[in-house]
């Protein structure tokens, strides 16, 4: 099978530790996205799979074989580079087939694979052009075609769309998913763009400062973030993190109280937690001008037009939070009330920043269907 397993893998350059004790199991044939801010170690992780970076400690398995020290050429991986890495002096067709011809793949077979790749990626008619005569999108597709014709079990992509403009990126994303659905390789995709991660990934592995933060489906990454970093990294604007004092079923925010139910209280107790932090996404906060039971009183700081909605910056006691609102009729300085549904809140252990978990009934399942449609 074509699974990829990292066992306690670390990578350092001298004193700089880029990847720390990575435990990652990528399933055979899945589309996994490595997501994280720049410098989080995601590209290094991908390059370790390809054998382009040496592994400092730990073990890497591709399929059932340990590959920790195997040279990259013997790993049967195909990779698409961020800068496409097309050979500038070779035509499109030559770029795509060169690797195959060196490996003595029969000529007829090369021709067959080339034709299929050209067809799939709409490169027909461009075979004899040089990379310099192609547009950015075409170059990117040639790079994809070159990786596709290898028919490798492992398909690695290092920010393949980051040099394309926003419009092309949307179509290119679909192309990538098509390729995967056609060939079923184990797909590992590095990006720093969360929309790309959400749309391409069947699972997302989020990394920060060399550590794996969370690996789960896009739904769970969004709805049940494993820690404060994930909660804030996924979603835009980021999740509001509010310091609270926990007392039974009440979370105190300064002198204001936020009432929870029994399920959440039990969850905190079960987690063995003493101090918690509250997280609520801006899109899950409802704003009203009039006081409502269980709503928190805030002052409007300013309002930002974000096109689709308005970002309303609020002062909630000592904390500044942001809420998304459909209308922009909020006046800086005025007192407003926010409320959030209990199933939309997240609680994190203040000491470890990890989630305390979610009580029964808070599931991402109800949102699953919606996301499948995006695919």
């Amino acid at each position, binding site marked *: 099978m074509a699974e990829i397993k990292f066992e306690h893998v670390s990578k350092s350059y001298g004193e700089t530790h880029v990847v720390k004790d990575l435990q990652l199991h990528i399933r055979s044939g899945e589309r996994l996205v490595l997501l994280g801010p720049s410098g989080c170690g995601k590209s290094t992780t991908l390059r370790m799979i390809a054998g382009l970076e040496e592994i400092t400690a730990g073990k890497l398995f591709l399929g059932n074989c340990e590959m920790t020290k195997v040279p990259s050429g013997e790993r049967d991986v195909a990779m698409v580079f961020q800068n496409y890495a097309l050979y500038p002096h070779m035509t499109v067709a030559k770029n795509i087939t060169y690797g195959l011809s060196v490996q003595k793949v029969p000529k007829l077979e090369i021709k067959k694979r080339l034709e299929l790749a050209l067809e799939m990626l709409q490169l027909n008619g461009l075979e004899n052009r040089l990379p*310099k005569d192609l547009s950015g999108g075409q170059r990117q597709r040639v790079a994809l075609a070159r990786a596709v014709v290898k028919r490798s079990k492992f398909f690695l992509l290092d920010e393949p769309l980051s040099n394309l403009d926003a419009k092309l990126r949307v179509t290119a994303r679909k192309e990538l998913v098509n390729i995967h659905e056609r060939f079923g390789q184990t797909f590992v995709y590095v990006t720093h763009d969360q929309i790309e991660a959400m749309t391409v990934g069947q699972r997302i592995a989020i990394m920060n400062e060399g550590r794996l933060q969370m690996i789960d489906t896009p739904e769970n990454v969004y709805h049940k973030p494993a820690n404060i970093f994930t909660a804030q990294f996924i979603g835009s604007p980021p999740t509001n993190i509010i310091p609270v004092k926990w007392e039974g079923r009440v979370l105190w925010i300064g002198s204001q109280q936020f009432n929870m139910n029994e399920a959440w209280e039990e969850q905190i107790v079960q987690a063995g937690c003493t101090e918690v932090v509250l997280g609520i996404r801006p899109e899950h906060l409802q704003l009203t001008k009039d006081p409502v039971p269980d709503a928190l009183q805030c002052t409007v700081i300013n309002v930002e037009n974000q096109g689709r909605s308005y970002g309303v910056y609020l002062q909630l006691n000592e904390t500044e939070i942001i809420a998304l609102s459909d209308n922009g009729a909020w006046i800086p300085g005025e007192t407003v009330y926010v409320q959030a549904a209990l199933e939309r809140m997240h609680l994190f252990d203040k000491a470890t920043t990890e989630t305390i978990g979610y009580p029964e009934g808070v599931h991402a399942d109800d949102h699953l269907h919606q996301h499948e449609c995006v695919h």
Partner: protein
Amino acid sequence: MRTRLQIGGIWHVVLILFLVLMLYPLIYALGNSFKSLSESYGTTLNVLPKLFTLENYQAFFNSLPVIRITLNTFFLGAVTTIVKLVTSFLAAYAFVYFRVKYKPALYFLLISTIFVPFTVTMIPNYLFISRLGLIDSVWGAILPQLADAIGIFLITQSMRGIPYSLIEVARLDRLPHRRIMLDIVLPLVRPAVTSTGIWFFITTWNEYVWPVLILKSTEQYTLPLALQMYISAEGGTNFTVAMAVSVVTMAIPLALYIMFQRYIIGTFASSGIK
């Protein structure tokens, strides 16, 4: 529009001046090589001969085995250039793509040999060649020149400009170094290799001091050594013959340069990345 034309005009005048400065010695040599010695001394400022004569060329061809000497020079130039390019390319490849301990220090050490003057290595090299019994052999003139830090430096610089991801793609395709070198790196550094090669060839072609130490018999002479025979203090200067030998000496590198000119320009335009 008018000022632009005027500026263009000024530039043309300057360029034409430089062109005349560059071409005058060449035309002067060419013209005098077809003059008789007396005419040359009599009408110094006349560039072109009044009486066209081939006697200088005849004198040169009659007194020395010119074909042999030209072939010697060509052989010395070609072998030195080709081998030096190969060693420079291989060394540059190793310096750029191999992981070697103390690489920066080794590279620095090698490059610093550029600053060692020829006169310092002349005597040890001579002794070495003489013990190998290669005095008066073209191989003796070739041997100490087969590797050159300047060549390594120039090709290394050009190779460093190749995006490393191209090499990584090749590694993922399990390409052996031979294929990476010949199919990927060489075409991309070809302009640097060509211009370095032209430069190697011209310097070796014109080289005088080292060959004159090694090559003793006229059979082994190169063109610059032949030229020296007509302007030496002992033999008395036969000016017009010397001009004829100069023209012969110049002709071959010039022809080669024109042949390879199209390789020097271009190719760099097509990087294909972004």
